[in-house]
């Protein structure tokens, strides 16, 4: 019903507009086309000027309204560089934006057709062309210079003491692997993947480096002020590790591992205090179209102190032991005290 109503209104509005448009065409012919044309010329010239002024006010209003909703201060060292570059570019382009848009609409208004003026024959001026080739070139050299300088800093090799975390995207979730005490991620091969058999990452168990690797899903823990190197991969299609608060992003490509590194500078707790939002979490978003669940492929990043991190990691069992319960000391203890359950069973029977 509502839809019908809207369609009816649109149709009616359209019919009225059309009739007015037709009528104005007839009137124009009757009153003399030249006169009608000049009138519409004045109206449009004025509208262009009005558009400029209202538009610029709109730009200001939009910024006032929305600037608080972008993410706030970056939470990583690289994020600071990204934001700085962003603001340098913003400053420069905004000046160009204002100058050119004002010139465009002002010229349109000022030089609208008038019987009093003749257009000025001005086909070329090489000096001007050189000026507006050189000035943008200089401005862009500055931007390229800063850009590449920061880019090389961000994409440089991770520091030696960086912790390593493996991030793997799949339809539609995130898997993480920590190297354990030895600091080395064990080798893996995709044909070993066997989620039911306790090997979701496809680890090669013959590699001893794998024996202490910890596997977790959906939640990544990082240590504040400690550089972290993410080794990124994907199982099925291309995903993308998007960390908006850290201003970091890297594709996860099946078959081609990628890496990125950064240093988180604020713990989740700190961010909760700073933003005044007790539910604040760092989110890990998939930024590369990956299928029907793309929009919901969310992971959580917890940034905490070294002590908290150590406690968290210690609470996790290496995946090797999950896959090989017979080698798990904690499980062995259970099997050693095997009579207990039997006794319990007997008890049950006895009752």
């Amino acid at each position, binding site marked *: 019903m509502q839809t019908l109503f809207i369609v009816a209104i649109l149709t009616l509005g359209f019919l009225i*507009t059309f009739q007015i448009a037709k009528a104005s065409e007839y009137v124009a012919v009757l009153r003399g086309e030249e006169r009608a044309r000049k009138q519409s010329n004045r109206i449009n*010239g004025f509208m262009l000027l009005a558009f400029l002024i209202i538009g610029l006010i709109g730009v200001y209003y939009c910024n006032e309204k929305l600037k608080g909703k972008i993410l706030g201060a970056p939470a990583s060292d690289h994020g600071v560089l990204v934001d700085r570059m962003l603001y340098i570019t913003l400053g420069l*382009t905004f000046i160009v934006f204002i100058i050119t848009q004002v010139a465009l609409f002002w010229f*349109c208004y000022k030089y609208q057709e008038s019987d009093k003026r003749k257009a000025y024959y001005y086909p070329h001026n090489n000096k001007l062309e050189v000026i507006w080739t050189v000035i943008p070139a200089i401005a862009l050299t500055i931007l390229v210079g800063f850009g590449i300088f920061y*880019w090389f800093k961000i994409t440089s090799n991770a520091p030696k003491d960086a912790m390593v975390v493996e991030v793997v995207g799949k339809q539609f979730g995130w898997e993480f692997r920590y190297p354990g005490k030895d600091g080395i991620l064990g080798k893996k091969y995709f044909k070993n993947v066997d989620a039911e058999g306790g090997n979701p990452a496809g680890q090669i168990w013959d590699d001893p480096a794998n024996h202490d690797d910890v596997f977790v899903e959906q939640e990544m823990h990082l240590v504040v002020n400690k550089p972290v190197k993410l080794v990124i991969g994907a199982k099925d299609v291309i995903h993308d590790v998007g960390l908006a608060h850290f201003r970091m992003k890297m594709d996860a490509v099946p*078959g081609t591992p990628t890496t990125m590194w950064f240093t988180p500078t604020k713990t989740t707790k700190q961010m909760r205090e700073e933003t005044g939002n007790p539910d604040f979490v760092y989110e890990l978003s998939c930024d590369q179209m990956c299928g029907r669940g793309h929009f919901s492929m969310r992971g959580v990043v917890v940034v905490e102190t070294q002590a908290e991190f150590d406690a968290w990691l210690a609470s996790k069992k290496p995946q090797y032991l999950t896959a090989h319960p017979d080698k798990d000391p904690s499980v062995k203890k259970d099997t050693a005290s095997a009579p207990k359950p039997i006794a319990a069973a007997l008890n049950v029977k006895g009752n």
Partner: protein
Amino acid sequence: MSEALHVHPGTTALPDVHHDEHHHAHHKETFISKYVFSMDHKTIGKQFLITGIVWAIIGGLFSVLFRLQLGYPDQSFPILETVFGKGAKGGQITPEFYYALVTMHGTVLVFFVLTAGLSGTFANLLIPLQIGARDMASPMLNMLSYWFFFLASIVMLSSLFIQTGPAAGGWTMYPPLSALRQAGDGSKLGTDLWLVSMALFIVSSLLGGLNYISTILNLRTKGMSMTRLPLPIWAMFFTAVLGVLSFPVLLSGAILLLFDRNLGTSFFLSDIVVNGEILPNEGGSAILFQHLFWFLGHPEVYIILLPAMGMVSEILSVNSRKPIFGYMAMLGSLFAICILAFLVWAHHMFVTGLNPFLGSVFVLLTLLIAVPSAIKVFNWLTTLWRGNIRFTPATLFAVGFVSLFISGGLTGIFLGNSTIDIHLHDTMFVVAHFHIVMGVASFFGMFAGVYHWFPKMFGRYLNSTLGYIHFWVTMIGAYLIFWPMHYQGLAGTPRRYLDKRGWSSFNGFPELDKMITIVSIIVFAVQLMFVFNFFYSIFKGRKVTNPNPWGANTLEWTTPIQPGHGNWEGEIPEVYRWPYDYAKDGRDFIPQTEPVGENESKH
């Protein structure tokens, strides 16, 4: 041949065409040969335009549908279920359907509307008319070019109606998502049809492009040296060169992808476990496809934009009654853009794990494009400066084009800089950027062209009051839709997220999303009004009585109001000057066909 030479001494390029004209004049044209399988470049241009309009309505409607989902993710629209069945169960768009919609929206508008509909229309219409030729170098290939496009359209359209739905991997069609049937419904038959359709489309585009190039190089009338060509022709020329050199690369990508999908090859596939199933493929590179895709994909942006630039240059000059400022600089910047267009493709791939050094080279080359773009903008501004501007709907759209090109071009400087791109890549910022600079701006160029050359196409005017309403609503709407969208991108909101309620970082803009949706519905309605104006005016518009209604210098206005096959009755006019002698020596305009006077000043 000897007869032709006799008629037109000194012209060596045209004898065959003359002959053709004589030949045709004696034959009665049937409906089929005149309107369907026509070899007349003007009719083919109109065919491209009308097919483009139909596609634009479809593609635009898709955007309205997914905007409904974005603006009102929690609301159900029962009518959607009535129309789309399981794609909108319970009146809510399903994720599969949403991704099919965005994919088709992108594909249709980029390729079928802004490539075929824009350059197909105006290259066909304007090249022979403005260079002084009776038709294209090969009218037959020209006709085939349209019909291959038509065939591609049919295949693409059919994919909308199959059980598993059309392709849904995004218009960039990245494998492995597009290569693996297990990865989603859209990756089933829909993707095969998409690839076949694109292959046909590329054939069409190549046939057209080769034809445009050879026509411009060989069939110019006497006196029409390359530097006397109107700027739209130069723009079409570079567009065609870009298309001919880059489309085959996409074709190779599409064919390899078809092999991966159907023949078990591993060009793009390696190390894949999809839905628990381990695939045998090893050694392929998913990134390879992105290189192949963007080697076309980036020039494609300029394939879309250059014709608009050329037409805007012409229209601004004609209607400000002033020569285009810096003709040679305009030409040089077109050339520079054309060259650079081939050298920047990897800026779409900064975060794919590309070697950082390579990335920095692409940053440099990408930002370099801003220099010729800036030259063009300043030259347009200077063309308006001290003019005597007539605001026809075409002029307004041309002015709108310049405004949008500035806005969208400047945000390109953000994205082309890899450091900022790390944060903004694949966010709504990108969506806002390319819609303004490539989508809406090119549409404005196309509208400007339609309003300006409609009298030549159909011998009637479009209703200009409707034209003004069309312009103002579209202009205001475009900025309302896309300007605030940049802020969503700055907040990191990834594109192609149909429902942001599950996120705390990106969920800050529900009101904004509603506003954008409402505005886009209004803008879409106004485009329908334009379509109505277009078809109504073909039959009922005010008749053109003046063969040169805008007082323009170029050759198309020296033909009869509705030129027949062959364009000029009698001889093709000779050209004596460049096309931009407006306001020279106190005269309003001096057509290209007027010989240079003895006392005329030099420029």
